[in-house]
């Protein structure tokens, strides 16, 4: 029997018209140009963090390029600017400052400033190089975006690719007899059916609500943040390569320094402080308080419904990983693109890998609450008392004892990001065969070599402002 290609998906309904839904729709339509992909609007939900985080990590660059979402277009139309990493203020003591850069870490045997961090500290920028001999091959960057402009730009691209936008919004999802979704009812009263439903509606998970109830994996004993404060307006723009996360005794404040404005938020726990105290600690004039229930669905793909973004996984936006996770999961969906005959084993494969991604992002965030020293503060005390997942315990333990980072399948963070996180939190690597046996002369040579590399990179880079101006000029 020769077999055959599977019958392709004929219709896909993407519920949610924020960046998560639009990116999914664009990716699916590109993969299956003859498939009718419809985006069904849902009310904008400020709690849909994957939609509203204004910063991405380097991993998204290649993904967006692959999906035909060009960086130049984002610079011209979505307020894009480029960032080299994040400054962590006050995480290990009240006064501490550390840079968590992107790119390659210095040789593990020496404690040194990475090339990316050196650039950022000098307030300079250059694009990464492909040539391993160039010190600029050590750097990498992430994008910042204006969420509203980004949503509009994605919407235009989706329309251009032939994705249909339903004029009428989502009203209800109806289950079928086999544990899936039979169809959607729109506000207009119209019914929509599809081979596959992609739920990008944010934490309300409007489509998945129509499924038989699914176990929810609760992360509230692991991640402290369950309230977010978002001010109604953005702050003044600031041109810099680093964004900032500041620990305060009542929570942490995140600031993305976009060229359109500063996108700030404050993350807190219901266990510590009050809305008034949070607003004060955040330094906001006023802010909406948004609840966040950290955790994820056990299976992100159930029957004919795939949950992306906050519909599937919810966690505090430390380091702004929410959209990065969406991109990794959309790439996975495109890799494992099903036919019309959805197969349970391919769902299992997607669920295994997508869950591994989510859990590892959670571990990365949780790591930040387990530094060896912490500033005084009720929030820090509360967070430090939370549970350490076994996988994170293993990571910290192996790193501190043996200077190694065990491999985890589907980690959305590159190895070097873990190295940088450890360094920024004051978690020192344990002795390795290399570090223990390195002669003093060899160590000095390594340090000198690395310092020269960083200095050369700084030399060849432009001041951030000048670089950005030239970049925007060429993007027009």
């Amino acid at each position, binding site marked *: *029997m020769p*077999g*055959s*290609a*599977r019958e392709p998906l004929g219709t896909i309904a993407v519920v949610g018209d924020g960046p998560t839904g639009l990116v999914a729709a664009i990716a699916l339509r590109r993969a299956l140009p003859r498939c009718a992909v419809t985006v069904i609007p849902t009310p904008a939900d400020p709690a849909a963090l994957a939609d509203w985080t204004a910063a991405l990590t380097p991993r998204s660059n290649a993904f967006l390029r692959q999906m035909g979402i060009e960086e130049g277009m984002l610079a011209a139309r979505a307020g894009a600017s480029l960032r080299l990493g994040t400054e962590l203020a006050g995480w290990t003591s009240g006064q501490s400052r550390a840079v968590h850069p992107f790119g390659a870490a210095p040789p593990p045997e020496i404690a040194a400033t990475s090339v990316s961090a050196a650039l950022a500290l000098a307030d300079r920028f250059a694009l990464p190089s492909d040539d391993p001999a160039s010190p600029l091959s050590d750097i990498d960057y992430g994008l910042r975006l204006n969420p509203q402009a980004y949503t509009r730009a994605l919407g235009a691209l989706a329309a251009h690719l032939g994705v249909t936008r339903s004029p009428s919004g989502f009203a209800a999802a109806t289950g079928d007899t086999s544990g899936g979704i039979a169809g959607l009812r729109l506000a207009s009263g119209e019914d929509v059916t599809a081979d596959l439903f992609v739920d990008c509606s944010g934490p309300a998970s409007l489509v998945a609500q129509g499924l038989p109830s699914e176990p929810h994996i609760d992360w509230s004993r692991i991640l402290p943040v369950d309230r977010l404060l978002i001010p109604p307006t953005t702050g003044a723009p600031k041109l810099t390569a680093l964004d900032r996360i500041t620990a305060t005794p009542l929570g942490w404040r995140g600031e993305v320094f976009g060229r359109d404005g500063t996108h700030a938020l404050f993350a807190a726990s219901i266990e510590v402080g009050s809305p008034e105290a949070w607003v004060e600690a955040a330094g906001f004039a006023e802010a909406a308080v948004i609840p966040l229930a950290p955790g994820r669905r056990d299976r992100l793909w159930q029957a004919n419904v795939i949950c992306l973004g906050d519909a599937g996984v919810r966690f505090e936006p430390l380091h702004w990983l929410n959209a990065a996770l969406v991109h990794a999961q959309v790439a996975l969906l495109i890799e494992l693109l099903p036919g019309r*005959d959805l197969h349970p084993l391919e769902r299992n494969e997607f669920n295994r890998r997508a869950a591994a991604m989510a859990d590892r992002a959670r571990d990365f965030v949780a790591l930040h609450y387990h530094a060896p020293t912490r500033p005084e503060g009720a929030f820090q005390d509360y967070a430090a008392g939370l549970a350490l997942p076994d996988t994170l315990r*293993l990571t910290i333990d192996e790193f501190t*004892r043996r200077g190694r980072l065990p491999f985890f399948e589907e980690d959305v963070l590159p190895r070097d990001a873990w190295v940088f996180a450890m360094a920024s939190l004051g978690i020192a690597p344990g002795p390795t065969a290399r570090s223990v*046996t390195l002669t003093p002369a060899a160590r000095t040579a390594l340090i000198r070599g690395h310092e020269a590399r960083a200095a050369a990179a700084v030399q060849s880079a432009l001041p951030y402002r000048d670089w950005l101006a030239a970049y925007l000029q060429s993007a027009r």
Partner: protein
Amino acid sequence: MGRRDPVSVVIVGGGTAGWSAAAALARLVPGGADIRLIESADIGIVGVGEATLPHVRQFIQQIGIDEAAFMRATHATFKLGIDFRNFGRIGDSYIHPFGTFGRDLAQVPFHHYWLQRRAAGEEADIGQFSLAVQAARAGRFQLPRETDLSLASSYGYAYQFDAGLFGPYLRDFACQHGVTRTEGRIVSVERDAESGDVASVTLEDGTRFTADLFIDCSGFRSLLLGDALEEPWEDWSHWLPCDRAVAMPTASPAGEIEPYTRATALGAGWAWRIPLQHRVGNGYVYASAFIDDDSAAEGLRGTAEGAALADPRILRFRAGRRRRSWVGNVVAIGLASGFLEPLESTSIYLSHMAILRLVDLFPFGGISPADRAEFNRLVDMEYDRIRDFLILHYHATTRDDSPFWDHVRTMQVPDSLAEKLELWRATGRVARYGEGLFFEPSWVAVYCGQNVVPDRWDARAALPDQPVLARALDRLKQEIAAQVQAMPGHRAFLERETRRLAHAG
């Protein structure tokens, strides 16, 4: 950080595993370990294990061994893959290459497009789209390019070498780098009454050696882990019933040297053929429940080509592993920790992998339970995944010509493999793991080579205009053929550099 007191290490056994461990520790933990290796010439080494995987190159590079010198010392040849004959069906032959098939298109793996063309009655052999397979078939070899995305970097290579020469070569190397060698038979193992750790080993002449860390490389005897610590054995012979081998070297034939290993399925197992510079290694791996030793030796004589250079020699083993490889202060590496038959040449890889893990976890400042747990987690994962891959070779068959093949064809496979098979059949996909030994191209090679063709595959393979797709595949085939044409023969390539040759002037 800074320097610390060296950890004292005694390695028990001087086979491939023992000397590999000694050489690697001497080079990768210089000054961090005091290393002594004890071996017994009376007992000797297992003396087989001649086909390797590309990882062995990284291993020898990492410890600073020059490739040409090593090839010369071990009479090594290049290996591009394994030719599996008569596995899926008598008369079949496919090569599992160290390389990929075709090129992915629009994020869809190549094999989906190949399946699509195959269903249209074309392109029966996916091997046509692998440079490594075509070069192997043509008896040609060239070093791959390392970094770019061209065809010339679409493959890797390994070596076929003389197992009796590899250990001694590493011995000289390790001793030059400060390893102390002791000749003698260990007659007793003393344990610390309190901790249960191994305290010392004692030789026939009464000499006693203590150490912080003991590495058990004593081969199938498993002198420390198995005998002394009595770590339980996990038996896998119900899935991998072969438990003996008969080995016999033969003279090299004149002409081209095959740049690959052959594995030919026989009535109660399979036979290897490993061409070296100066001879050919042959052996029949069989299940004693299905054939007796004499008939197996007879079977080997029947398939081995060329004049025999020695009498057939019989080896006994079992498929499985010790439940844990690192217990107390004893780390078992090589045959002392477990055995998976050589169908995919994985055993030396497993030793080298374990050695490099041990370097990663090297117990400066004392062994902690976490080191052991982590080491065992990593070793188990490797063993389990290789096990499933080996079982596939036996199970994916339509052979019903002997009780052995009836058994393996109809046996119940581990759930982990059953699910992989079902996913492949229903969707043409290979479950993806970032860690482990065999990745997608390897699974595709064996599935397709053994006629496990999916019922359904990626819908996107049907989207391109089919004549355009057919032309693209044709072009790829021609490109590969042209590159193979431009490669030298394997023998010519070997002889191009006399530094590689054992018998060069």
